[in-house]
C-alpha cells in the first residue's frame, strides 16, 4: 500500500506573518522598509508549498478557514509553482451548485495536471450556517452532502446526466469533450460518528480520522471497512495528525509544554515520531496529513527529518511482507 503524506497549509495559522496589514500598522521602523503591497501573504503560501515540495511531501492539505483566504483560491494560486504536489482544499458542501463545483474541479484537473482533491468540511453549528446564508436543517445535512457529491460525480462522469433531489436538480447535464477526459478529484470525508462512517462507506475515497489511540483507530477502521464492504466499495484511511518533532526527545517535550500543543499530538525525537507514524501505517492508515506550526519551518523539519525515517520504516515493513 502506497503511503501518501500531505503537509497542512493552514491559512489562518501564523496570521501575522507576511501580512501587509500587520506590517503597515507597526508604524515607522528603523530599518528602511521597502516592502510594498506587491509582497503579500500568498508569497508565504507559495513558500510553504515549495518547502513541502522540496522535502518530498506528496501534497498539501488546505483546511477550510472562513475567516481567512479561501482554500480553493489559495490552492489554485500556488498550483503552478508546485507542479508535483497534490492539492486538497477543504470546503463546505453549501458553496453553491454541485454542477458548477464539478465544472471548476474539471478545469483545475485539466489545467493543473489532475492533482486536485476535494475535502468536504464538516458542517458548523446552525448559527454559523445562518450567517452564511445556509438554512438547511441539521437532519438534512448528510443528505445534502450526499446529493452534492452524487451530482458532482454524475455531471462529471455521465452525459446526459439528470437528477432531481431535495437540494439539487439537473437536466441533460454532463461535460462534452475535452472536458470529459480528466479524473474526478479524490474525495476526502471526515468524522468519527456512525453516520459519518456510513456516509464515507458510500461516498469517500479517503476517510480522514482525528488522532486517537491505536486500538480506537483500529476499531474505527474496521467498522468503516465493514460498512464499505456492504456497499461493495473500499475506502482508504487517512489521519489528520499534529506532530512536534525535535532532534532530541527532551527538547520536544519542552517545546510541547511551552506551545501547549493539543491532545493527540505526536511528540518526540525524529525517530520516535517516525516510529509512531509507522505504527499507524501498520494498522492500514495510508494518507497522513501532518500538521505543525510555523508551517514553513516545520515543513522543512518534518520533511527533512521525520519523513525519510518514516518512509524507511514503512518500506522495511513492505519488503518484509
Amino acid at each position, binding site marked *: 500500500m502506497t503511503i501518501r503524506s500531505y503537509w497542512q497549509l493552514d491559512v489562518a495559522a501564523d*496570521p501575522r506573518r507576511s*501580512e501587509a*496589514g500587520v506590517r503597515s500598522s507597526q508604524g515607522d521602523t528603523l530599518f528602511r522598509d521597502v516592502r510594498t*503591497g*506587491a509582497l*503579500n*501573504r*500568498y508569497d508565504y503560501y*507559495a513558500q510553504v508549498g515549495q518547502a513541502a515540495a522540496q522535502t518530498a511531501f506528496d501534497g498539501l492539505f488546505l483546511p477550510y478557514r*472562513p*475567516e*481567512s*483566504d*479561501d482554500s*480553493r*483560491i*489559495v490552492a*489554485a*494560486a*500556488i*498550483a*503552478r*509553482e508546485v507542479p508535483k504536489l497534490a492539492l486538497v482544499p477543504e470546503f*463546505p458542501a*453549501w*458553496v*453553491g*451548485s*454541485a*454542477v*458548477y463545483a464539478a*465544472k*471548476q474541479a*474539471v*478545469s*483545475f484537473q*485539466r*489545467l*493543473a*495536471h489532475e492533482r486536485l482533491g476535494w475535502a468536504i468540511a464538516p458542517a458548523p453549528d446552525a*448559527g454559523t450556517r*445562518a*450567517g*452564511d*446564508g*445556509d*438554512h438547511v436543517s441539521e437532519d438534512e445535512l448528510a443528505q445534502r452532502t450526499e446529493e452534492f457529491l452524487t*451530482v458532482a460525480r454524475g*455531471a462529471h462522469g455521465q452525459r446526459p446526466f439528470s437528477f432531481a433531489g431535495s437540494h*439539487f*436538480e*439537473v*437536466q*441533460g*447535464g454532463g*461535460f*462534452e*469533450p*475535452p*472536458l470529459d477526459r480528466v479524473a474526478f478529484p479524490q474525495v476526502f470525508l471526515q468524522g468519527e460518528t456512525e453516520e459519518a462512517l456510513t456516509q464515507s462507506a458510500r461516498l469517500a475515497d479517503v476517510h480522514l480520522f482525528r488522532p486517537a489511540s491505536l486500538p480506537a483507530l483500529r476499531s474505527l477502521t474496521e467498522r468503516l471497512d465493514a460498512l464499505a464492504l456492504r456497499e461493495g466499495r473500499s475506502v482508504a484511511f487517512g489521519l489528520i495528525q499534529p506532530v512536534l518533532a525535535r532532534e532530541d526527545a527532551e527538547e520536544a517535550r519542552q517545546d510541547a509544554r511551552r506551545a501547549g500543543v493539543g491532545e493527540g499530538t505526536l511528540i518526540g525525537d525524529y525517530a520516535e515520531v517516525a516510529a509512531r507514524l509507522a505504527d499507524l501505517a501498520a494498522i492500514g492508515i495510508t494518507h497522513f496529513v501532518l500538521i505543525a506550526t510555523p508551517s514553513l519551518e516545520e515543513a522543512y523539519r518534518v520533511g527533512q527529518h521525520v519523513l525519510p525515517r518514516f518512509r524507511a520504516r514503512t518500506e522495511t515493513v513492505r519488503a518484509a511482507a
Partner: protein
Amino acid sequence: MTIDFYWRLPTHGCHGTIRHSAYDRGDWSPLGPHNMAPGLDRDGKDDGFRYIDHLAEIAKAAESMGFIGGLIPSFPNTDDPWVISPLLARETKTFRFMIAFQPGFLNPVHAARLSASLQRATGGRTVFNIITGGGGPAQLWWGDSFSHDDRYGRTTEFLDVFKGVWKNGSFSYEGRFYQVTDGGLSPLLAAEEIPEIWFSGSSDAALQSAAKHADYYLSWLEPFDQLTDKFARVKERTAALGGEQKCAIRVDLVARATEEEAWRDIRIGFENVGDETRRRLGGQRTDSVGAARQAALRPSEARRYEELIVAPNLWGGFNLLRGGPALGIVGSYEQCAARLDELIARGADAFILAGTPHLEEAYRVGEEVLPLLGRRAETLLQAAE
C-alpha cells in the same frame, strides 16, 4: 478622460488564424502536429503543456500592451474563470481578471469570501461580468430551473447579500431567494475592495438590477445607431431608478495594415466555413433578448461575405468564424481606431476587444490601434483623402 480597454482570454481554445475554424491552441479539436498547449512531442506524445500555459501568454501580452485586463467567458464547454484567475494571479502584474459568472451558481456569502481572497491574491485585480440571461434547456444543464425574470430578481438579491456581508460586520437579510442572519466577512477579508461589477442584459428586469448594483453596462456591438439608442435608454432608465451606468462594448476586430488585407482575411475565413458550422450556428436556442437582437442578422443564410457588411467597417458574420457575437469591426488600423472613437463619442466608456489569434492580435491591436485613439486616426484618414 481615459477609457479602460480590456482584452479577452478565450476559454474555449483559440484558433491560430481567423481563416480556419480548427482550435489548434488548446484541446478542443483533435490534437494534430501543429497543435499547442497541449501539443505533441517528437514521439507523438502529449508534451505536458496545458491550455493555461497559452492563456498565461495571452494575459501577459495584454498587460504589456496596456490592456487593463481581460474578460474570461464562461460556458458549459469552457474552462472556468474562477480557476483560471487564481492560477494566473501570481504570474501577472497589472492584468485584471474579469470573471464571467452566473450568481445563481454560488452561495453569495461564500462568493464574497472567494472574491475577497482573490482580491488578496491579485492585489485587487478582480472584476465581475455578471451574467443572468440565457435560459431554457441551457440553464437546466447547470442545474438551474428559475424563469427569466426570477433570475434577475435573484441576481439583485445575490448582490445585495454579496455586498452586504462585505460592508457590514453583522448583516441580516430576508429575501425571496436568500436569507442571512448575522453574516459578515472577517476584517481581514472585508478590508479588500468590492470588485467592479459589469452587467449585461437588455430586458427591463436586467436594467432594474443593473441600476442597483452595476458599475458598467456591457453590450455586444450592434449597428451604431441602435447602440446609441440602447446606451441612452440604459443611462436614462437606470438614472430614473437611482443608479448610474457607464457603458461598455464587447467587440472583435480584424485590424490590418490596409483595409484590403483585412477584408481578404474575412473573405478567406468566410469561404472556409462548412455547411455544418452554418447550420449549427443558425440553430442555437436561448431566451436572451440580446441574442435575439443579433440573430436578426442571419449570417447563416449569407452566400457571400459582402452580404454581411452592415455599415462601413462593420461585418456581421463573426459568429461563423468563432463562437460569440456576430458583429465586429474590420479595417485598417486607422479605420478601426476611428470606429472605436466614434463609439466613444456615442457613449462608450470602456471596451472589451478581441481578435484571433488572441495572443498575436493583442500585440497588434495594442501596438497599432490603441495608440491611434483619441481622434488621431481620424486626422490621419482625412489627411490621406
